[in-house]
């Protein structure tokens, strides 16, 4: 702690002053100033599109700012590329790992900084490994520098990323700043603890910028928190005196309260025939004897650990995979889909986990994406009616509050939450969709976008849509569902009623999951 106290006085390691960056039609960063002091962990939060990525891209030398300055240890710096940024002492740990799997740990750590260990273009392995070891020692990792990267676990690779980021210190005289971009988004909870311990260790040798949209984690590890919103730095808070609710409010600009999941809006399911029923559905090696039903206006949650078979089940229901035994009934008729073509015709929609791959068609417009599943409503014979198209798509863009410059914009340029809304619009604009399968619909979305999705789910129920939900967290599944089916090792182990006010707790569910 003494170290912390003294750091308050010291010259800040990194100073960002009045940074502004615009893209065509968008102000991505608007006069942003912040500083990072020696041995400090600074949290940086903000919704998707708040400007975090742009700021990080400027810090890592990928973008040049329109105006404003960067200072390292009081000296102004400017970057022409990532190499310059590394030389100035900024080490980036990217959200998606940027390692080369076919070569050794040491080669990865010193990628791009091998020069000192080269003789006429040949590696001097002893030197390379020694230098890598030095970085690994700093974070107390026991990974061997000579190990092939491909043999490491995901968490170990993250350690290598950290060591690689720390290696910037070799070329830079002073304390580096290590920027961790959403490091927790793909970690399991055990690995999470390891990472937090690592951050504490990093603090001894560096300053850390911790970027995340998980507020509780940010509060836990940071000494100070900056909140970004709409390209501005809107607040600076001390984690000791601020709570998640306040951070959330600063970040989103509205009250969070207990209404996150819109539980009050959960209407009871009326007594109607089930839309979708399965009887003894079995896919060898994935799930066995699954019988369930979902009625109009009902959210049926499916809970289970990885490998419990629920992802496979959802794909089978959508016709994307085949099954070996059992029956599927849709609106009182026995159906068997050999591909999603049949499922979609019969009225099933699917929001996939792999949003960028299976959800949206990047490179096509918002309009084209909305019409991807069903364009009959806006067609005259085989031809599209441009007027009807514009009407329908504009209507859904407004209804779902999709933030896009216009309906002809490339969907790839939208934020994750807005892309998810485009996918929803794709199914909702089709009059035939009766059942929606939501496979982790809020994965990778920030809080604000999640809330929008929750509100939409409630609205869909009110309109008699039957929903099968595979949630990102247990809380989400429990809060949103009318009933929750728990799967364990490929079969249904329990079924919970989940009326508002009488919801099961996550602990009760977990008992049946493992």
């Amino acid at each position, binding site marked *: 702690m003494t170290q912390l106290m003294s750091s308050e006085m010291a010259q800040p390691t990194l100073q960002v002053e009045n940074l502004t960056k615009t893209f065509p039609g968008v102000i991505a960063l608007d006069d942003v100033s912040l500083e990072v002091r020696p041995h400090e962990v600074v949290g940086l939060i903000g919704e998707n599109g*708040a400007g975090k990525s742009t700021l990080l891209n400027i810090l890592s030398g990928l973008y040049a700012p329109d105006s404003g300055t960067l200072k390292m240890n009081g000296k102004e710096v400017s970057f022409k590329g990532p190499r310059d940024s590394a030389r100035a002492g900024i080490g980036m740990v990217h959200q998606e790992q940027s390692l080369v799997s076919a070569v050794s740990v040491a080669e990865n750590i010193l990628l791009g900084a091998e020069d000192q260990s080269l003789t006429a273009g040949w590696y001097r392995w002893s030197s390379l490994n020694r230098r890598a070891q030095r970085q690994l020692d700093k974070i107390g990792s026991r990974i061997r520098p000579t190990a092939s990267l491909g043999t490491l676990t995901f968490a170990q690779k993250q350690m290598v990323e950290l060591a690689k980021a720390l290696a910037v210190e070799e070329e830079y005289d002073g304390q580096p700043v290590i920027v961790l971009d959403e490091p927790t988004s793909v970690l399991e909870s055990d690995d999470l603890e390891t990472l937090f311990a690592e951050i504490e260790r990093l603090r001894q040798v560096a300053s850390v910028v911790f970027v995340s949209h998980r507020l509780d984690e940010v509060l836990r590890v940071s000494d100070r928190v900056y909140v970004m919103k709409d390209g501005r730095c809107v607040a600076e808070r001390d984690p000791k005196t601020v709570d998640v609710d306040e951070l959330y409010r600063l970040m989103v600009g509205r009250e969070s309260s207990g209404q996150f999941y819109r539980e009050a809006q959960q209407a009871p399911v009326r007594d109607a025939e089930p839309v979708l029923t399965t009887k003894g559905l079995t896919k060898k090696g994935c799930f066995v004897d699954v019988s369930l039903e979902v009625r109009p206006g009902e959210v049926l949650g499916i809970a289970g650990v990885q490998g419990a078979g629920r992802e496979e089940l959802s794909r089978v229901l959508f016709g994307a995979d085949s099954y070996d035994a059992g029956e599927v009934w849709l609106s009182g008729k026995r159906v068997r889909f050999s591909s*999603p073509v049949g499922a979609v015709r019969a009225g099933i929609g699917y929001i996939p986990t792999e949003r960028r791959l299976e959800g949206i068609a990047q490179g*096509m417009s918002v309009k084209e994406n909305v019409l991807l599943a069903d364009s009959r409503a806006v067609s005259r014979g085989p031809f599209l009616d441009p007027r009807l198209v514009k009407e329908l798509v504009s209507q859904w863009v407004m209804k779902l509050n999709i933030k896009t410059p216009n309906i002809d914009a490339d969907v790839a340029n939208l934020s994750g939450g807005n892309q998810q809304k485009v996918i929803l619009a794709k199914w909702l604009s089709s009059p035939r969709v009766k059942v929606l399968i939501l496979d982790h619909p809020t994965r990778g979305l920030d809080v604000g976008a999640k809330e929008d999705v929750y509100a939409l789910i409630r609205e869909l129920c009110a309109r008699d849509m039957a929903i099968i939900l595979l949630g990102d967290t247990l809380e989400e599944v429990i809060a949103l569902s009318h009933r929750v089916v728990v799967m364990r090792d490929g079969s249904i182990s329990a079924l919970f009623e989940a009326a508002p006010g009488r919801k099961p707790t996550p602990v009760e569910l977990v008992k049946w999951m493992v």
Partner: protein
Amino acid sequence: MDGVTPMTEMTQTKNVHVGAGSSQSRLIAILPLIVLIVLVAAVTIRQPSFLNIRSLQSLSISLAPILLLGLGQTFVVLTGGIDLSNAALASLGTVLLAMWLPHFGVGAAALMIITLTLLGFVVGWVSATAQIPTFIVTLGAMGLWGGVGMVLTGEATVQIGSSYQAIAWVRDTLFLQIPMPAILAVGAVLLAAALMATLSSGRKFQAIGLAEQAVLMSGGSTFLLRCVAFALSGLCAGLAALVLTASQYSGAPHLADSLLLPVIAAIVVGGTAITGGRGGPMRTLVGASIIVVLRVGLSAIGVDAAYEQVVYGAVIILAVALTIDRSRMQVVK
């Protein structure tokens, strides 16, 4: 623009690769047209007779088969595949037409075009069913069609005798001074472009090229669409075979083979992405025109015809290097 969405919402369209991507794609849309205009101007300066009606007519006749094959190829390339067999299929078409003309008269042309459409469909079906890259399937098919042609003809050119009258109209008809082959080819391109712009399924080829999984998971039959793209490639090969047979008075098992390189060159020069998803028939029209004018230009400055293929090969590599969407390559691989 549609005043529906609030333009004040500034929070989107970032964390994107907006910069490079969009300016590159805008350039790709315009650049080929500029190249064409510059080429035409250059050739005209060197050879003022280039723009007289006779020379333009002969230019349009040599444009026709490249454009037709290019149009067929465009459908396949848009879906993210490539059809190396469509020039060889056209060669086979000239053989079939030459052999069938004495028996069926003008009906032979229709029969040949239908046959080639079906053969194209089969190639697409094999590729989609067996999940083999189109590059490999069509490489095999290219050899296959050539071989079948050789077997049918005994490795000789099939001369057309008096039955040529049945297809003489293709060579002889002039409408507003425009030769029939050019009308067929440009007409097919315009029709395709118009249909792709207005049909409700018109952009599906592009959609597959950009995001096959997304189309599949939206209930689109990517299987059928792939087959259709190849069937259209076969159909266009049939039209090209008709035009070629009419201008050569004969059919031969390798008659159209040398067109493969200029056809692919035409597509990439026109600005259709070889990785699929972006481009279309109109771009191929521009690209094919560039290739044909380039050929005339080369002979105008005295380059030996033997160097033509050298130029096409270089043009393909250069055009792809300039136009390829590398941001997508990282995602697609």
